């Protein structure tokens, strides 16, 4: 019952999620095999969006709550490596596709 309630209350959100999932499928469905690795890498960089959670966490934390601050900062570092490294590596992989012009 609770879940049904949840469903009815968040109907639009659920629509949104389902459509994003479909969109995620659609957007990828016709990739040439060449691009599998860079695409994976690019998607991986996007999944680093979790860093935003770490930022929110730290911004919300007390200035003296060192446990949360330090753990949160570790989170930021990890997330940032994922984001920056991910996009940069993807870019390097994709460099080979600019070599030639049709």
């Amino acid at each position, binding site marked *: 019952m609770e879940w049904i309630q949840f469903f009815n209350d968040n109907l639009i959100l659920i629509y949104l*999620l389902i459509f*994003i*999932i479909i*969109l*995620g*499928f659609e*957007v990828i*469905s*016709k*990739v*040439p*095999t*060449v*691009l*599998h*690795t860079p*695409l*994976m890498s*690019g*998607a*991986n*960089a*996007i*999944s*680093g*969006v*979790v860093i*935003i*959670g*770490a*930022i*929110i966490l*730290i*911004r919300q934390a007390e*200035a003296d709550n060192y446990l*949360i*601050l330090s*753990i*949160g*900062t570790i*989170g*930021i*570092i*990890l*997330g*940032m*490596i*994922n984001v*920056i*490294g*991910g996009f*940069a590596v993807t*870019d*390097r*992989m*994709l*460099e080979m*596709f*600019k070599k*030639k012009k049709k």
Partner: protein
Amino acid sequence: MSIFIINLSYLLGALAFVIGLRRLSSPDTARRGNILAAIGMGIAIVATLFNPEIVGSNNYGWIAGGMIGGGVVGWLVAQRVQMTAMPQMVSIFNGLGGACAVVLSMIELYQHYGSSAKTTQELVVIVLALLIGAIAFTGSILAYLKLDGKVWDSQVTLPKHNILNIILLLVTLGVATYLVVTGGSLAVALILMGIALVYGFSFVAPIGGADMPVVISLLNSFTGLSAAAAGLIYGNNIMLIGGILVGASGTILTVLMCQAMNRSLVNVLIGGFGGGASSTQQDGEQVAKEVTTNDAAIQLFYAQSVLFVPGYGLAVAQAQKITKELDDLLESNGVEVRYAIHPVAGRMPGHMNVLLAEADVPYPKLLDLEDANAALPNTDMVVVVGANDVVNPAALNDPGSPVYGMPVLNVWEAKHVTVLKRSMRPGYAGIQNQLFFHDKTRMLFGDAKDSIQKLVAEVKTLV
């Protein structure tokens, strides 16, 4: 108003993710797509940094430190890593993303047991983020180790490993349920984290080394889902959307990668098979390396100069016309294509000439032995189409070989060699060919006409 701007920024960020991903799936636009997604990420981060709705002591110092530190490390690593080590790198990055999700959910749980208790629904979401993030974390790390050759399949696989995995999974889910239902304690939460980390490791352990890219893609979609769960925790749209998007596209990409390998996902995950035999052909101690049509097509397309070496197999497969088609296709994309005709290729003098003339290959494109050997060191890619004896290095370096002393095409002097034949069977002279085990050589097994037809199709997707 400022909230409007923040909302708008998140919306734009989400759009940038979608469109960026879309562009990433076509070679022409991939690079711009990646940059677009990066810009979207930038917008989202900046918006979060200055979102007035987030109240607290901000602690920008900590944030700046973390971001600069992480950013610099990420950038340097990305620039330094070898092209060949890219998949490992992606795997590590992905693991870190998962770790970040683990860190976040552990803090939420810590707060749950400390200051601010959560609702059951929130707890479910937090535990989900924890579990998925943890699996993605250790799984990715093991995938990295395997890919990097630091760990062998046999070192981490136990007998009946798949059963072990199922048990581990059940235990993990059990503890998770317990925690959600009873509320648990920090200790339970730590135990759960521990089990999930172990499970992530164990999950990847039995999967064959050659299947790692598929696994990384799968783990990547896990990371996406954990980010989405974290988005729910923080009520943050862009985390939710970005996470779901990566979750969905990662899943479909995983399936596509399995299809490209002609395997099912289940087959990959049960593992074992992908580890060795399928991708290599053994001869005693030696291993001939196979190449996918796709990789071969890329090498061809991005080469400056390609040399076809036709042999009897080209004639048997009647592949002359399709070879010419591939030639035309490459030429029209700026690749210089020529043919190296060995004097004894085929089964009669001039056999190759007859065939290539039939396919209308202009005479000036045909190089004889001497010219070809002169051209080879400057050739990016040699495609041996059903030739064997005429490219046998034993003729130069194995005095015991029955072909010792015969001039052959020194194809191994080119940068890359791809050999198209149906099997490892020898040619007319009946002797094995060391070329097939050469470092630079990759085998593309199958009837030459079929193989080239597939190459043509693949190259067309690159144009």
